[in-house]
């Protein structure tokens, strides 16, 4: 992130933040861990570049963060990260503007980290992951949003039996029937290898629905289970990945994990179908199917 405030700058801004630690940064966002009223929280700072003032970008950045917070507030599920105690506000650090708010701090590791560590989940773990993910997406769906960035990096395995997997980051969530936050000609936001085929259509906003998230969920679970992306190949160009997403049949999960129930593999494969109509219509429909699989 550009202009990431150092720990001392954040401490000066909010002396009440105890045990302050830098966690991560990327894009315009930096994340810190702090203890507030005895509880650890993830403090988020989003940089508002001064040049954004001129082209309407400032309003868009603020609207986007407001939308993320609104989406989280409207999703009453513990499968999604919860908001923290700090309400959204604009702060100034060394003359630069930032948005500040907090979420609960989640201890654990991302699915991406586990994939890198060549973790091989068993069926029970995969079933739990799929259940948590579908419950999270059902809440997103019922709130009238689409997550748009489901991927291994945005899922945290906590090790807690109550909340074993938690979905993060509604930063690019799309509100169905909501005001557009980006120009019509802008490409779809998201992480390319996890984007559903329909998102590469010029009119993607007209065809976007929760089935795009179901696709990304399928790709994520497939990759976590097998260590292999069902379509993308390591090191290839972005346009090659896009071509595969649009044209190439996805790998079949049963071919890579013959030890898993065929019906579970079929469920994941169905989520990854190119035609949205061939996927589950809602996360709940997939969840009902999952319930029938032992």
């Amino acid at each position, binding site marked *: 992130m550009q202009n990431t405030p150092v720990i001392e700058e954040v401490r000066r801004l909010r002396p009440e933040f105890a045990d302050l630690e830098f966690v991560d940064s990327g894009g315009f966002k930096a994340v810190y861990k702090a203890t507030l009223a005895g509880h650890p929280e993830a403090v988020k700072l989003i940089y508002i570049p001064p040049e954004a003032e001129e082209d309407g970008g400032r309003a868009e950045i603020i609207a986007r963060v407001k939308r993320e917070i609104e989406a989280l507030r409207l999703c009453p599920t513990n499968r999604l990260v919860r908001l923290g105690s700090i309400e959204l506000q604009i702060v100034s650090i060394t003359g630069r503007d930032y948005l500040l708010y907090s979420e609960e701090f989640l201890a654990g590791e991302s699915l991406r980290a586990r994939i890198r560590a060549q973790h091989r989940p068993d069926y029970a773990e995969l079933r739990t992951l799929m259940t948590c993910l579908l419950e999270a997406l059902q809440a997103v769906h019922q709130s009238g949003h689409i997550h748009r960035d489901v991927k291994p990096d945005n899922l945290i395995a906590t090790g807690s039996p109550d909340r074993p997997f938690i979905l993060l980051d509604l930063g690019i969530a799309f509100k169905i029937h909501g005001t557009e936050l980006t120009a019509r000609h802008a490409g779809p936001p998201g992480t390319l290898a996890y984007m559903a085929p*329909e998102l590469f259509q010029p009119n993607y906003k007209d*065809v976007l*629905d929760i*089935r795009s998230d179901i696709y990304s969920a399928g790709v994520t679970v497939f990759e976590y289970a097998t260590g292999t992306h069902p379509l993308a190949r390591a090191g290839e160009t972005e346009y090659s990945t896009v071509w595969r997403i649009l044209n190439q*049949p996805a790998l079949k999960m049963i071919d890579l994990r013959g030890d898993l129930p065929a019906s579970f593999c079929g469920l994941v494969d*169905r989520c990854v*179908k*190119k*035609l*949205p*109509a*061939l996927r589950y*219509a809602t996360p709940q*429909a997939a969840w009902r199917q999952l319930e029938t699989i032992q």
Partner: protein
Amino acid sequence: MKVLAQNGHQPSNKISEGLAQGVLDGLIISTRYTAPDKAEERIREAKRINADADVLVDPEYYATRQLGTPNNQLGYLEDWPYFNAVPRRDLVRTGVVEEALRQVWVEVSRLGVSAHIAPNIYIPQSFDSIEAGIAMNFIGGAKDIFADGRPVYATIALDRRALLNPAEFKSFLNDLTALENPPDGFYILVGGGLINERSDVVHSEIVDANVIGGWMLLNHVLAQNGFRVINGCADLLMPFLGVAGGDAGATGWWSNLRVFSMGRYVKPEGPGGQLPTVRYVSKLLFNRIRLNELRVYAEILPGVLNGLPLDAKYTGGTPTRTDEAVQTWEAISSLNTGLVAGDIAQGLARLDDCVTQARAAYACLQSRGLSEGIEAVSEYLTQLANAVQTFRRLAEL
């Protein structure tokens, strides 16, 4: 997969025999061939023979486009109060569509049908059309209006050409499976041919790999999304649609009940020709053959005979028109039982085998000098074989 009778002209005792002999699971009553005051009688008669029979009434609303056209033949349709021409420019308004649905509902809700077929207009050419948009409004409103607890099947009546544009077709499927208050199922009619074209032209247009593959995809997508699917005028394509996920198919005794065409609502030009000869549906040949062919073929290849009870009507004498109709339902019902499997991969493999065996049987007959019409048969079987491949590709299997 259930086999239903597609009701039409001159039913005589065909349907009652089919129900009594257990080769039919029900019927779809045509409002063109049934006066409003006779519909309930027809339903009661079917239920008397088989209390569990599926009895539905097709309001044939899609035929309203023929109202006011010269040489139309609409039979009793014009006696049904709902059968009024509504201009397309008015049907783009949701309120007008709801009123059209309500008018049909008023008439059919008093009938003892086991499920409702909700009306729709005909999609004549493309899913990217005003008609397709109107059709979607009919589908979207059906469940709200037809609300007496009985299952509701929304009609999708379309021209074959609509299935041939994959991008538009897939977009339609995506919209169809995202409706907020969908019906319980769909009643699908795929039509071919232009007005006044002969039924054999219509048949050859429907028996096309891309049309059948698309029709199968429509069944598959709807079944995958939890809808029940009835295919009108499906005839010998029934097992293909059943393998793809369809629940039922219908066929009748005249060619216009075996293959759908809007041409059925227009009087043919010139005098009517002779009645077609009686034919036999051979499961092995996956085809309908003439009596003289049956006798010659069966001497060379006994498997041309199905080994089913109605064979006796053909081997022991001259079958009647009723025998012919019942034999068709018997053969298709048996094909469905043998081919439609719970597992789609297994069902498709069986279809492949079935078509291969038909090709092999015809090759055997040809080797014995029986090559009349073999080119047409070969083309027909090629289309069926390719349809399975087309479907596999479209359904991403």
